């Protein structure tokens, strides 16, 4: 660990008050079609003559396939084909993304249809293709599977079993460390050891997955509709798997009904509709039902931590050690081992930790595969870190806030680098931040001190009520590159083509604002295109809070290029130096005088048409294609505060208050950021209190309906208070931006555990998420 590092690059950007539209809480441009029923989600996309696919799924959590008898299904009118793995024998398993180091884990990838073994209930075994979705479903029920049951492994902290004969279900053991951990624990005033668990839950978007494959044999062009999140990256993977050139395979994103990290990853069904579309030369549509979603879409978070912390007598952290049992589920999906790696690298959070050693045992179990869910590895590690800090406070008799205060990295120490000893493990380089300042602001805004007195009084009167705090780091905007194309139409409309993706977070509005700010147009005149691989060849997509930072950076660069071209050209037409010109509401005019000569951007575009005599060596069109490249990640940070009240009789936890304090560097649209933070917070509360994918000892999923998988409703959520600050714009970004997609959820598990401990006045009581009424009742009975 060291600090110091790269010089800051960009000057501090102006505040929103000095901006026209960037930083302002303007209404979204994407809303009108969505409130009038004109959205176009995967289920709304149809092609003439399309087939419908239905997947036959394993009823066994682990077993050997003895036979698949499709004769009855094939005899049904309207059924075209039933495939098993033998029909796609040449197809590789669902591959990792190209940028993932996959050494030693490729054997654990999931085949599109199970080959020899089934490994979770829901594992695709066969695919039925029929003219009608109802018929496809009927036929799927007629496919007879003979499966020889094998022993199941249902916990990652149980001894490993076998993935296949001779291959352990412990796929890999990963390490992150720095500093002298032995010395830290040897010299400690106190050492605390905790055994902690985060429960299995997931994003569960309201729209289930969907995929429509279309093949144009005349052009040898393959299309996947219903794409989301990372269309360009998925195209790379699909080209590799299907051995096709990128120009012959295109992904098309339409409206997406929520993503949260799990939607838009590549799944078996996406590949199957493409292969089938080619083979049958007919469009093939697949829409997941909810039960399938709850058994097959990526789940996440399930980890057990045996964590230790060493501190001096004042509560300063000397070292942290953690052994993680990461429940990967049945296969390793597209992210490889990203989640356990992010868990380990973000474990020390916003604190100064001189020595650290973590080991993650990535173990396969006979459950639905796990992957990234909003704030992957961070929700988990913040829970563990928060529990450790609360335990230190209790052990040393120091106030929980004070013990955190004493360990925070300060603004003077920025940029702050956390480097790991293991070769190839990327260092974290915190770019900017004032963590102590945000903590104090949050405590003040929440009325923390007065609150403590109130809570004490209420507890004295018999209530089980308490408050908690969690502090966390986020990461966003990881490089390397994104690009954008901008073109001004003769009528002044601006077309902005990005390689980004929208999962409903307000991407179009944010990009339009960034474009409009640089170009001097009304943001509502910008048509934002995303998720179309045929319109732009590269795109970073929408993941890991990248969109606003990286794609936004590309939009800023490109809009500035168009602006420069417009001003240079207008300068000649208006006989005015370009430096004296500005663009206001789509008109190029003099900065200093009102009513002088002016020209509309659309008119400039007209005069730049191909063949125009005014071109004089310029390329035609008022347009540009720009790139934003960066080697860096930017690090937002936040504080969560919460008040929880426990019902002694029912064990139900009511979250009375919740504050998300978050420094976003610079906000593009505070209204949308608040939306992200509040929405994320409520998802996090679900994972903290009620959402859990439960399995029985035979591997049967018990949470396969919305009656069993309990997501928060209006009645379960507090009025979340948001304190959005802009104290630490990123010096690594031209607009100072940092991401905001995951700051609402990151600390939710940690802070709720902290608040419930306080409510029960039982330090360290909460060791496991979610804290269901049943678990509270068990605690109260002790």
């Amino acid at each position: 660990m060291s600090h110091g590092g790269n010089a800051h690059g960009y000057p501090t950007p102006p505040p929103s008050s000095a901006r026209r539209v960037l930083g302002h809480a303007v209404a979204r441009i994407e809303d009108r079609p969505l409130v009038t029923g004109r959205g176009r989600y995967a289920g709304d996309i149809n092609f003439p003559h399309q087939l419908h696919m239905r997947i036959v799924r394993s009823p066994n959590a682990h077993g050997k396939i003895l036979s698949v008898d499709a004769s009855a299904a094939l005899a049904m009118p309207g059924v075209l084909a039933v495939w098993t793995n033998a029909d796609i024998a040449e197809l590789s398993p669902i591959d990792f993304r190209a940028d993932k180091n996959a050494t030693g884990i490729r054997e654990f990838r999931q085949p599109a249809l199970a080959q020899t073994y089934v490994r979770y209930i829901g594992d695709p075994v066969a695919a039925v293709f029929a003219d009608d979705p109802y018929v496809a479903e009927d036929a799927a029920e007629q496919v007879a599977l003979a499966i020889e049951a094998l022993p199941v492994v249902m916990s990652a902290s149980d001894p490993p079993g076998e993935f296949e004969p001779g291959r352990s279900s412990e796929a890999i053991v990963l390490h992150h460390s720095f500093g002298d951990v032995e010395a830290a624990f040897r010299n400690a005033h106190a050492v605390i050891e905790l055994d902690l668990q985060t429960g299995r839950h997931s994003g569960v978007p309201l729209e289930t997955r969907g995929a429509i494959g279309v093949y144009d044999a005349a052009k040898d062009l393959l299309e996947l509709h219903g794409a989301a999140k990372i269309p360009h990256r998925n195209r790379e993977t699909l080209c590799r798997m299907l051995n096709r050139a990128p120009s012959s395979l295109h992904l098309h994103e339409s409206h997406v009904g929520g993503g949260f990290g799990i939607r838009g990853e590549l799944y078996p069904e996406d590949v199957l509709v493409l292969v089938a579309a080619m083979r049958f030369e007919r469009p093939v549509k697949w829409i997941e039902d909810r039960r399938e979603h709850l058994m097959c879409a990526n789940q996440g978070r399930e980890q057990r931590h045996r964590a230790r912390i060493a501190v001096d007598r004042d509560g300063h952290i000397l070292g942290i050690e953690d052994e993680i049992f990461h429940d990967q589920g049945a296969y390793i999906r597209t992210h490889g081992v990203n989640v356990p790696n992010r868990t380990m690298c973000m474990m020390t959070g916003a604190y100064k930790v001189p020595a650290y050693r973590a080991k993650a045992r990535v173990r396969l179990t006979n459950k639905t595969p796990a992957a990234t869910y909003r704030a992957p590895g961070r929700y988990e590690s913040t829970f563990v870190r928060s529990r450790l800090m609360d335990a230190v406070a209790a052990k040393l008799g120091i106030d929980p806030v004070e013990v955190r205060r004493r360990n925070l990295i300060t603004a003077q120490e920025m940029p702050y680098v956390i480097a790991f000893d293991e070769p190839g493990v990327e260092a974290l380089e915190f770019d900017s931040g004032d963590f102590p300042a945000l903590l104090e602001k949050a405590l003040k805004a929440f009325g923390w001190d007065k609150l403590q007195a109130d809570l004490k009084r209420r507890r004295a009167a018999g209530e089980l009520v308490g408050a908690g705090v969690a502090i966390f780091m986020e990461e966003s905007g990881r490089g390397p590159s994104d690009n954008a194309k901008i073109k001004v139409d003769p009528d002044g409309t601006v077309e902005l083509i990005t390689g980004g993706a929208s999962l409903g977070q307000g991407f179009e509005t944010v990009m339009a604002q960034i474009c409009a700010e640089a170009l001097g147009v009304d943001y509502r005149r910008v048509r934002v295109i995303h998720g179309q691989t045929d319109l732009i060849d590269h795109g970073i997509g929408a993941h890991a809070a990248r969109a606003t930072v990286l794609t936004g950076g590309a939009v800023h660069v490109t809009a500035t290029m168009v602006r420069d071209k417009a001003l240079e050209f207008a300068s000649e037409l208006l006989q005015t130096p370009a430096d004296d010109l500005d663009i206001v509401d789509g008109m190029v005019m003099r900065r200093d005088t009102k009513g002088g000569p002016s020209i509309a951007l659309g008119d400039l575009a007209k005069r730049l048409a191909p063949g125009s005599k005014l071109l004089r060596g310029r390329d035609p069109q008022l347009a540009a294609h720009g790139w934003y490249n960066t080697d860096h990640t930017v690090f937002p940070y936040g504080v969560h505060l919460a008040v929880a009240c426990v019902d002694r009789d029912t064990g139900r936890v009511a979250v009375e208050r919740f504050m998300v304090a978050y420094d976003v560097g610079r906000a593009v649209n505070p209204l949308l950021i608040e939306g992200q933070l509040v929405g994320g917070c409520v998802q996090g509360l679900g994972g903290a209190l009620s959402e859990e994918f439960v399995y029985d000892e035979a591997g049967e999923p018990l949470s396969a309906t919305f009656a069993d998988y309990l997501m928060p409703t209006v009645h379960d959520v507090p009025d979340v208070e948001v304190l959005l600050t802009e104290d630490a714009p990123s010096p690594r970004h031209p607009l100072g931006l940092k991401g905001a997609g995951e700051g609402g959820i990151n600390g939710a598990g940690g802070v709720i555990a902290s608040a419930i401990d306080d409510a029960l006045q039982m330090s360290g009581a909460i060791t496991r998420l979610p804290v269901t009424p049943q678990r509270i009742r068990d605690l109260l009975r002790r």
Partner: protein
Amino acid sequence: MTDKTDIILIINGRAHAISVEPRKTLVDAIRDDCGQTGTHIGCEHGICGTCTIILDGDAVRSCLMFAVQADGRHIRTVEGLADGETLHPLQQAFITHHGLQCGFCTPGFLMLAVNALEHNPNIGDDELLDVLASNLCRCTGYQNIIKAVRAARDEMRGAKAT
């Protein structure tokens, strides 16, 4: 199972003469046979409320009914809320208060809330929460949905009073 029945669904005042299997759900018929895809399918087991429509004056979950049960009856969906280019006050309130993100649950919430406000324009805040607790949203954390519906209620009440 392939014997079809001829029925008429009257959606937003327009009659759709369709032929469906008796087992076809109402939401599938509205979407696939009548082409009104504004009504979405979220769970198909009656919990999320994404497919909420108004049937003869009551908010119902169209995934829990068969299309044949709605034969000849009046259905209102999200496509019928706006008056031409003029949005319904609730649609406008959802935009103004950022009451939607991905928009998938939005048609269901709109129909649920419109129905509640039409039945009781003076509905109280708590009762409104009880109504809104019938549907699930995964993006917004509900806060802005609540704000939007309260604002629309107040606006519609004000408009009636003047």
